[in-house]
């Protein structure tokens, strides 16, 4: 199966390990991965801040970059959701709306793709450790991917899972919210970190790079001994 990787700008620049793990997991499951070189950012930071005009240019780029892809897979729920949003943003645009619809139809978040398209519940991973999992808002509420990550994690050998208290509460990232509304964001991420600590997990796992960068950044700043991992990295460990 031919799969185009939408690695996201965070994944390209700051978390290349996540991209690498994604490639390796998917290849092991028999996918043939390509990486459209002309991909940029999905436009979400500008779009969410209200700069719709500016962000539309990036969106058009992305639609072109993935025009010929059969499947588009993204290791970040929020960015995958953004690809699904294009069709609403370009609503009634005779040229771009159909392209946006096409893109939405073939775009999947990584765990969703593995479970729903590849029909694989167990990727054969082994991971020793106590973990908890943060369900990101855009991925669960807006994209609607709730069970796939749990299905995959529950089949990882050696992994001990504890549910995160208040697991559906936002971590306070919200893109530019994290800097525009710093003091509020700080309170939100602090409550999240506190909840993670309550689980006594050694690892916090998530499927959204933005949230992980936020929670992880706070954990590191506070010097807490909790490691933050993307779910792709867990699924790639043997």
């Amino acid at each position, binding site marked *: 199966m031919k799969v185009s990787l939408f690695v996201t*700008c965070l*994944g390209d620049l700051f978390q290349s390990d996540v991209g690498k793990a994604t490639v390796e997991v998917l290849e092991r499951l028999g996918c043939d991965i390509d990486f459209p070189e002309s991909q940029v950012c999905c436009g979400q930071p500008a779009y969410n801040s*209200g700069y719709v005009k500016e*962000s539309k*240019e990036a969106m058009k780029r992305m639609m072109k970059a993935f025009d010929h892809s059969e499947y588009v897979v993204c290791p970040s729920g929020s960015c995958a959701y953004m690809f699904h949003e294009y069709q609403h943003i370009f609503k009634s645009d005779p040229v771009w709306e159909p392209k946006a619809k096409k893109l939405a139809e073939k775009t999947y978040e990584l765990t969703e793709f593995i479970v729903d398209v590849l029909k694989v519940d167990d990727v054969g991973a082994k991971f020793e450790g106590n973990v908890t999992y943060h369900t990101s*808002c855009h991925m669960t509420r*807006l994209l609607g991917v709730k069970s796939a990550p749990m299905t995959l994690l529950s089949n990882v050998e050696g992994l001990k899972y504890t549910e995160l208290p208040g697991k559906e509460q936002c971590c306070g990232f*919200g893109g530019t919210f994290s800097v525009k509304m710093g003091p509020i964001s700080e309170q939100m991420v602090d409550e999240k970190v506190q909840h993670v600590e309550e689980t006594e997990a050694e690892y916090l796992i998530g499927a959204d790079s933005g949230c992980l*960068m936020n929670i992880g*950044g706070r954990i590191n700043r506070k010097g807490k001994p909790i490691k933050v991992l993307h779910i792709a990295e867990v699924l790639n460990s043997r």
Partner: protein
Amino acid sequence: MAMKIGSNEFNERVGQGIDDAFMRGAVSGAQDSMGVRRSNAAEELGNWEDWRSHGEEIRQHVLEHLDYYLEQLSKNVAELGGHVFFAETKEEANEYIRGIAQKKQAKKIVKAKSMVTEEIGLNAVLEEEGCKVIETDLGEYILQVDDHDPPSHIVVPALHKNKEQIRDVFKEKLGYKKTSKPEELALHAREMLREEYMTADIGITGCNFAVAESGSISLVTNEGNADLVTALPKTQITVMGMERIVPTFEEMEVLVSLLTRSAVGQKLTSYISVLTGPREAQDADGPEEFHLVIVDNGRSDILGGEFQSILQCIRCAACINVCPVYRHIGGHSYGSIYSGPIGAVLSPLLGGYDEYKELPYASTLCGACTEVCPVKIPLHDLLHKHREVIVEKEGKAPISEKLLMKSFGIGAASPMLYKFGTKFAPTALNPYTNGESISKGPGPMKAWTDIREFPAPNKERFRDWFKNRKKEENAHGRDDSESR
């Protein structure tokens, strides 16, 4: 007090909210318990999503035909002998009600809870007229006794106070001597209020839903105070936002069911008071004179525009009770009697962007509000829409941000520039990097690193890794075939 509360700047208000440990304890405790109650009540109904869709349909239908239903309602109220006044502005509404108070030479007015009277600042106008205005809803009463502390929640106005604080307020202002047990506090308030109902000249209420078909108004309460406010005084005035209307009792039933479950996690509240016109000869009680004041105050401007769906709101506060931002800053930080997600959408529409331009940004767009709204208002989309309007139509965004976003537009849209920019990010950020992260970032990054570490850019971007790997694979592929 009108819609706007306090005179501090947004950031200052937020700071005060965050520092108020009592308030935050009260709010997060209430959110946690109400959240569970709400979702249990929704689940118990079985097909909650169908109910929501039905609620949405009813509200949309009413908004699409608002002229028709307003006319029907007015006609029916008038036929029953009531007076209907349509107020385009808050001033008009207040003047009309002041006029009634003057004519009746009213000294004492009892009120049931009403957000729209808060919105128009009615109490202040009546007090100016020399009337004693008494709030009879327990929460509103507490706030009134506490020197008119503004409400912080549309359903539980004194949510920001815990029971010990309430005891202290009662002690100081009312000579209360008992404990902080909620029952004892409520009993005391009730005793203080009983006398007032009997001697009030006018009763004022809000309105949860007006029923167009019958000319009735309905009030949903847990304390039964609205029953007394509508039954005892000779004159009654009901003030309603012009959108708070349903065609018939059948639709009202659906919406009340959604409202009580969403607001307090109950199948039904203890009291649903329905009033249909003034007292008739055979009635045992009820007002001799009934006035219905229908308030526009900016709502017509919302109608027919891109924010119309916010008028579907039935003021249940479910969105507030799940909002993670409200959780940490409390209601007063919003600077409006309408707080939380509903407030962040509605306040700029009713009060203008100059006053409320920060509110649409006080959200992570996490969608928790949209998920629970019983009439399916896409709250997070509307917050986003506000941002778009602020940036593109109003031009009210800060210049530094505009420049940043412009360059984002150019950078992100051009694969060449993007590639170039990201390639040199590690070098550019090198001076700030220690090991794996950045603790003190430059420029716009500072606000991030004030709170958390920022990851250092990878030495090798993903795209370079991928390309090199492909190259190697190809090379190996050739080696393999050669050796064969």
